[in-house]
């Protein structure tokens, strides 16, 4: 039982990360019907930005005490938000009227650009994130250990998700986002600036990916320019699992993905860790393509 509970905790940690990244995928799909394949690499940029910022701070011997981590987190989130908005403006907006396939290919292109550009810029060798917060077991009960960083990841993820829920449900911008997901044309009729809403969506989604990047760098300190490929793909599967376009779906999918992965590695074999994501993708598309929380939309032809 102890082992099971411990695996549960481990699974929730990665589940939070996948959920944060999946939110970005699902929101962009909601407003643009586009799978933003570059999203996983925005997550990587988040980790890299905080790595270099942390190094610069250390080199300048600026000690901020306990504030170092929140500042780096905020910095990465802002940097990634800017990057996301830039990608949207430069790569996706010009193709707004183009066939869906063109934008998809462009998204893959941006992804490759970030990955290999990152290799050139940062070097292909893995980097080791400095230990900003000394990790120590925070709670131990009955043999199950939850350490500080795991708590931090869960807490910050939940906080960000609550903030997002508030923004989407209770603010005008959120309402506009929901309207644009419903219909671009109708939104324009009621006076919503669709372009601006899309930019805001990218800003929010990418900042969440940036946050995920920093959290992962903290927990698993090895970072490299290709680190976003696998988590990006898995978060995409998670978003599809929960119902792409649905925010609660992304959350559900993310946590399910994290838990499933941990249990497969623990009880079956670690070799199937990555394979699981794809098995789940195939399964959900075959059995319930609209996802667990998605609505099956019937199209009248």
């Amino acid at each position: 039982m102890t082992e099971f509970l411990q695996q549960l905790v481990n699974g929730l940690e990665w589940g939070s990360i996948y959920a944060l990244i999946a939110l970005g995928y699902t929101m962009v799909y909601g407003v643009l019907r586009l799978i933003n394949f570059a999203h996983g690499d925005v997550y990587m940029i988040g980790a890299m930005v905080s790595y270099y910022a942390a190094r610069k701070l250390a080199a300048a011997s600026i000690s901020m005490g306990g504030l170092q981590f929140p500042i780096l987190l905020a910095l990465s989130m802002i940097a990634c938000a800017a990057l996301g908005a830039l990608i949207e403006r430069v790569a996706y907006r010009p193709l707004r009227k183009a066939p869906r396939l063109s934008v998809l290919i462009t998204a893959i292109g941006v992804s490759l650009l970030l990955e290999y550009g990152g290799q050139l810029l940062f070097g292909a060798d893995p980097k080791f994130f400095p230990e900003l917060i000394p990790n120590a077991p925070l709670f131990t009960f009955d043999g199950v250990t939850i350490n500080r960083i795991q708590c931090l990841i869960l807490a910050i993820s939940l906080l960000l998700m609550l903030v997002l829920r508030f923004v989407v449900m209770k603010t005008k911008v959120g309402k506009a986002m929901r309207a644009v997901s419903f219909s671009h044309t109708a939104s324009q009729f009621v006076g919503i600036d669709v372009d601006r809403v899309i930019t805001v969506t990218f800003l929010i989604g990418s900042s969440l990916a940036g946050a995920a990047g920093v959290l992962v760098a903290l927990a698993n300190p090895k970072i490299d320019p290709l680190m976003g490929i696998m988590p990006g793909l898995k978060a995409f599967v998670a978003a599809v699992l929960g119902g792409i376009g649905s925010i609660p779906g992304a959350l559900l999918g993310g946590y399910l993905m994290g838990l499933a992965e941990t249990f497969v590695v623990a009880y079956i074999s670690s070799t199937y860790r990555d394979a699981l994501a794809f098995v789940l993708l195939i399964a959900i598309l075959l059995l319930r393509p609209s996802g667990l929380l998605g609505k099956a939309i019937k199209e009248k032809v």
Partner: protein
Amino acid sequence: MKTLSRFFCLLTLILSATACQKSENVLLIGEYGSLTGGTATFGQSSHKGTQLALDEINAQGGLLGKKVKIITEDDQSRPEEAKTAVLKLIKQNGVISVLGEVASSRSLAAAPECQKAKIPMVSPASTNPKVTEVGDYIFRACFVDTFQGEAMAKFAFNTLHAKKVAVLKDIKNDYSVGLDEFFEKTFKDLGGEIVGVESYSEGDIEFRAQLTSLRSKTPDAVYVPGYYTEVGLIARQARELGITVPLLGGDGWDSAKTLEIGGKAVNDCYFTNHYASDDPSPTVQGFIAKFKKKYGETPDAMAVLGYDSAGILFDAIKRAGSGDPAKIRDALATTKDFPGVSGNITMDENRNAKKRIVVLKIENGAVTFSEAMNP
């Protein structure tokens, strides 16, 4: 179009002419290693050791009256690249011998090419027995994993009094899988129990699921026969999960990065290795002084073996009295009592070096000598 194709023909001719040029007064030796990539310190260290040997031999006037030149290729820590690198060295540069690689998987990828081309290959640190089994042109300057796994099993059982050991191995790595096999066999023969075996893949960053599983079996020690990048992370996550027993490993742990990544988590851990930097022997200390003078850092085992592998190759060329690969191969096979920094090197009938092994302990952020075992 006709001018273009004519131009290309001319270009090809010129290029092939220059490529075929064999300098008459230079001995060309190839070196391939992981200068970049996941296990970059392996290649970088062995390269530094080899370069030191090269500088020394040329300062002494070279070999057979000719200057020695080493052409280095980076395989980026990938086996496919190792094969390509070696093919380039043999076919394009026309080297008479090849030095490399540290990692067994990469040596295994390149060795068949060297064997096919009948160019001797001397691996500095690949310990998987399969490497020299590829053919009679493949040699190694180090011991093999049958000996290494056995040594750690004996150390764990006899010195650490561990009766139950759990294993976390790298399933995608020939070295790790092989080493674990030999360790388990000896440990079980001694009367110990392997309580759990989990695996990961090179490049993974998340090991908590496997470690949690092993934790529940309450082992006295955990054997992690992997490479330093993952070992550092595994140690950290193991400690975070409350696994306080010693972690044990092999020579894949040997890198300054293990301590950098692992930090406090790798304290009270042991690994088998080719040499100990606190060995008081004058040969070892003399080499460390030379290395420090040139590079400003203490050499790790890969650097020492890079130096020794170049050493035995140069010695073989001298004894062969010729730059003919077949004669060099024969001379390598009869290497006896070569005074290497990592010990006395004698080639046995399988072209493996018969040498002693040391067990090192990581304590308070430093690596210290614990025990030595002879074959």
